């Protein structure tokens, strides 16, 4: 008799693993397709110019400079539109590569796009200047007399402001809200740039297929923003009408916020996902907080656990009962759906335990499939550990804990004592290479764990991390 359930569970495990592999392959294919679309859209922008007969417009030096200026403008604008789509939280992108990677690509495109657009402006000033016999600076005057060009200059100025405030060194000097306000100007920049593209250049002249394609790109980018960043969250917030039900102190500086709402299960949240929350009181409504669920929602109840950091989060704990809450989400790939390997390994530190708690709750695990390592720098940081311990027992998972500060001398993610004892990633997780490793915690710590895991030879697709710094 006892052998029967075990055979059944082993069979279930194998089939679950086959499913996982299939799902992963599908996701990888979609991911490759998205990458291909990104680069091809850049090539297509250049192709618009070639289709116009652009290859023949390199005859003289002046014409060549002008032509190059046009191409850089087209490709740069295409990149900006791609960036809008990446930041639009389009479901297929979030499901395929996850919101954080989409934003990473969005960031990586920022500087190249700015350089291309700056080159566009400079090259055209030089190119037009050569044609008309002015120097590039003097050419600014005549250029501004062209219809729609003043708007285009404003657009370029806005784009410069947006990208410069987003450079890591500069961004630190801004509050999130200040930076975000400047960032919203990019919508105006992209919109202000459109008229001159359609009227000044001949490439997108009325009646050409190029014009149709270009306008379609704009509609796609702005449509994605409007649909997924404004309409969908507003509709979903109204439909589920979330309110603060109870704020519960779980540790010094850490609170669990309980919400009441309607049909919350139909939001389709997966364990490990986050929402962007906005609390509608006079002093908090302009802050939005990306926070993971710390438990799977029931139809009428949801819960998050927050550590009070910075301005916005600081006010959350004093939020009144009954406060209306709007949400955007669920987002993120720190979920069971992202698994690719037969075993599960989890490492969480501090407040990073919240998505792990929900992930664990939702995962269907065979006994022995999962190993969990919880990390805290002192005993105050051990909130939700009791809940995770309970879940671990119920699901037959192995649970380790490590309490203590990291060594300041050697770069290790473990407490000094454990590191000195000779504990390694491989000794805690003997099946590491057969496992999906989920890591969540503060970024500097997380980077160390990731580096350690990579050094141990874990393939990139088995590594899942959730950073709390964006």
């Amino acid at each position, binding site marked *: 008799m006892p052998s029967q359930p075990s055979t059944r569970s082993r069979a279930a495990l194998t089939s679950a693993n086959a499913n996982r592999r299939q799902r992963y392959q599908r996701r990888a294919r979609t991911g490759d397709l998205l990458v291909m679309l990104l*680069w091809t859209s850049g090539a*297509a922008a250049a192709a618009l110019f070639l289709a116009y007969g652009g*290859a023949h417009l390199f*005859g003289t030096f002046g014409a060549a400079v002008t032509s190059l200026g046009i191409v850089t403008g087209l490709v740069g604008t295409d990149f900006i539109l791609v960036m809008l789509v990446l930041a639009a939280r389009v479901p297929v992108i979030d499901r395929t590569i996850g919101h954080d990677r989409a934003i990473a690509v969005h960031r990586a495109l920022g500087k190249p796009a700015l350089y291309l657009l700056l080159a566009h402006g400079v090259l055209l000033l030089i190119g*037009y200047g050569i044609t008309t016999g002015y120097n590039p600076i003097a050419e600014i005057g005549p250029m501004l007399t062209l219809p*729609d*060009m003043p708007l285009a200059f404003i657009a370029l100025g806005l784009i410069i402001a947006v990208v410069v405030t987003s450079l890591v060194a500069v961004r630190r000097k801004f509050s999130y809200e200040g930076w975000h306000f400047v960032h919203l100007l990019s919508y105006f920049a992209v919109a202000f740039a459109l008229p001159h593209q359609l009227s000044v250049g001949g490439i997108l*002249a009325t009646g050409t297929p190029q014009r149709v394609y270009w306008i379609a790109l704009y509609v796609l980018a702005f449509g994605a923003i409007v649909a997924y960043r404004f309409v969908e969250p507003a509709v979903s917030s109204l439909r589920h009408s979330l309110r603060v039900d109870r704020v519960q102190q779980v540790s010094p500086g850490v609170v669990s916020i309980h919400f009441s709402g309607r049909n919350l299960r139909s939001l389709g949240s997966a364990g490990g996902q986050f929402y962007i929350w906005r609390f509608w009181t006079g002093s908090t409504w302009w802050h939005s907080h990306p926070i993971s669920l710390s438990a799977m929602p029931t139809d009428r109840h949801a819960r998050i656990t927050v550590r009070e950091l910075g301005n916005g989060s600081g006010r959350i704990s004093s939020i009144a009962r009954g406060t209306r809450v709007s949400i955007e989400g669920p987002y993120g790939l720190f979920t069971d759906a992202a698994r690719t390997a037969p075993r599960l390994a989890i490492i969480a530190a501090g407040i990073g335990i919240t998505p792990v708690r929900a992930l664990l709750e939702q995962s269907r695990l065979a006994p022995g499939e999962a190993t969990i390592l919880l990390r805290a720098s002192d005993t105050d940081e051990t909130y939700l550990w009791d809940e995770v311990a309970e879940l671990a027992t119920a699901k037959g998972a192995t649970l380790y804990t490590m309490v203590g500060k990291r060594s300041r001398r050697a770069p290790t993610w473990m407490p000094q004592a454990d590191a000195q004892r000779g504990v390694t990633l491989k000794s805690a997780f003997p099946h590491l290479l057969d496992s999906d490793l989920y890591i969540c915690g503060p970024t500097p710590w997380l980077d160390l764990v990731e580096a350690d895991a990579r050094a141990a030879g874990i393939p990139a697709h088995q590594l899942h991390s959730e950073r709390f710094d964006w």
Partner: protein
Amino acid sequence: MRTRAVITSIFASIGVLLIGWQAGQTATTTTVSTPQASGTTARTSTTTSAATSAAASSASPSVAPAAPVGPKAKDGTYAGSSVNTQFGSVQVQVTISGGAITDVTPLHLTDQGGRSVQISNYAAPILHDEVLQAQSSRVSNVSGATYTTDAYLSSLQSALDKAGF
């Protein structure tokens, strides 16, 4: 998996660029062929683009093949056909006096698309001087004003054809 993404990206990009380039080739050959079809001349200077497309489609052989060293052209003013470009139509009028081109007046120049007027105003005097000097429509292209130049010269040629120049 990433290699697959890179390889497909490269191929798709090259494919798209080739399609664009190919389309560009056909686009330029059609713009070049338009002037050749402008055999008929428009009588008045108020020709609209409709007249040009009619002219282009009728494509009646020009009267040009008169020998270059043949009888001298009659004095007078002749309007060329209106030639369409994507930046607007171009039509010029030529004045023949004593068997020589003495003046070329633009009746209409490219004016669509923000920079067209600027380009036209810059290119027209250059073309005017070159034509008077060369005494024919076979002059070099004004850089940065390719479309205007092509249309200007083909409208001029149609006027010269009419004059039997």
